[in-house]
């Protein structure tokens, strides 16, 4: 064990990280045995693939900062920021790797489906309740206002389509050498 307090702290932290890694590996090994998922090869076959790059990056950056010695470096803050950036980037890669597995996509799909299964009847019941209340008060419901707005948009679309047709006709007339017509 080094005499330098910084080095002692680093050694202690390294030890904790090693123990954490072992715990993580045991957990992942159990998950692999339990799920035996064939479509998550990276995670199931090599759990270290998630953990190691992230830890190695963090360890390297942290060691660099800690081994500067007892005297404060003028750029200690910049080094700390760099360390955090690398740490976040490493986390980002780990998460991206996890989220790009088929298992994650399936889990997310199931979560969404579960949400839709729950929310659909609630939404329908709430809308019916609100519509009934508004009808009782003689106030148009959201659905009625939306339908009205849709009609207005459709009318606008028809006007635009008519304008397009008029434009086309005018262009053809102009192309054919007919006298120019003043447009409305």
């Amino acid at each position, binding site marked *: 064990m080094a005499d330098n307090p910084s080095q002692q702290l680093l050694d202690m932290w390294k030890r904790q990280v090693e123990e954490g890694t072992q715990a993580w590996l045991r957990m992942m090994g159990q998950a692999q045995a339990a799920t035996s998922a064939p479509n998550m090869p990276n995670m199931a076959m090599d759990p270290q693939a998630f953990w190691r790059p992230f830890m190695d990056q963090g360890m390297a950056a942290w060691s660099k900062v800690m081994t500067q010695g007892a005297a404060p470096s003028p750029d200690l803050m910049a080094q700390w920021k760099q360390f955090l950036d690398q740490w976040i980037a490493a986390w980002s890669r780990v998460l*991206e790797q996890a989220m790009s597995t088929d298992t994650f996509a399936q889990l*997310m799909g199931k979560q969404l489906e579960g949400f839709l299964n729950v929310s659909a009847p609630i*939404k329908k019941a709430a809308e019916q309740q609100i519509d009934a209340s508004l009808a009782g008060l003689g106030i148009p419901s959201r659905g009625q206002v939306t339908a009205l707005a849709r009609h*207005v948009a459709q009318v606008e679309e028809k006007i635009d389509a008519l304008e397009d047709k008029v434009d086309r006709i005018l262009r053809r007339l102009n192309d054919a050498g007919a006298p120019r017509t003043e447009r409305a």
Partner: protein
Amino acid sequence: MKDELFTMMGEMPAMSPALLARMREEANRNLLRMKHFGEMVMNPKEPKVGPTPRQEIFRTNKSRLWRYESRRTVRTPLLFVPNLGISRPYIFDLMPKGSFVEYMTQQGFDFYLVDWGVFGDEDNGLTVEDAVTKILPRLARKALESSGASEMSVLGYCMGAPLSASFVATHPEFPLKNYVDMAGPIDFAHVGLFGKWLAPEVFDVDKYVDTLGSIPAEMVKMGFKLLKPTMDVSTNLNLWWNLWNPDYVSGFTALNKWANEYLPFPGEFFRQWVRDFYQQNKLIKGELTMAGRRVDLREIRCPVLAVGAKEDNIAPPACVKPLIDVVSTRDKEYVELPGGHISLIAGRGASVHCWPKVASWLAARS
């Protein structure tokens, strides 16, 4: 008090002048950080976005066509087609000296921006086909009329690229001079995480749309945040680090405003977008039909530039580049620039790498 502190520090024997200067600088930065943080919390200012003067040329339903006039030293005007839904278009004109629109107009391009607008429940019936065959042709024609030009270049950004590519491929009568795809997915087989999450085996788009009607902005936000979960941590860390710098703070507040304003998707648009593009990849296969016309990208015969961003996780380079392989022109170029999806359109990287490339490529052909 501050000077006193530094005088005391200066008397400490271990302090070198360089270290002392650096510590003094850091102490000053910390004071500024606290000052700016206090201002952001106690007296937050609404950032002014969209500074470039513009004129509304045409409006249909929620969509508008904006003209940003230039000295017009470049003959062919530019029609810019961004994404529909997801986010607001002021990112393209975010702030003075940080605006794609401002840059392009300064380069002499008359710039026409398609602003799809914010769609409500009444627009849930709007489809991709409507956007491509009804709204876009109308806006493009109005832009052409307004400019008085005989030809026009089209630039599609993000989702705006597959939409505008579908439009130009199905409307050969439109006098297209050049076409630019900026971070726009074309081959959805290589579209990254979204492609995986929206695959038909795991994502039932019909059930989603039938239940919710439209895709709420919060859902859109969740999807994009999930794409890069560490983004907020990273953003806030960088903010703290640069909080002493007033220029960074003003840029951050503008960009942060945009980054947190998500827009909903009309239901039927989302259904067709996910099914035809993400799940069935019909565009690149030539299987997409719009208003009875087959969308054949080989019909694009003008000069084509495709721009990918190396770290783009929304439209990875592998899904942008294939446009170059399918178009029917010899004058075509693919460039891959550093940064992510937004780095092409906003920020310092964009003004250094992307905008000059796009402007010079277009100017040489306009």
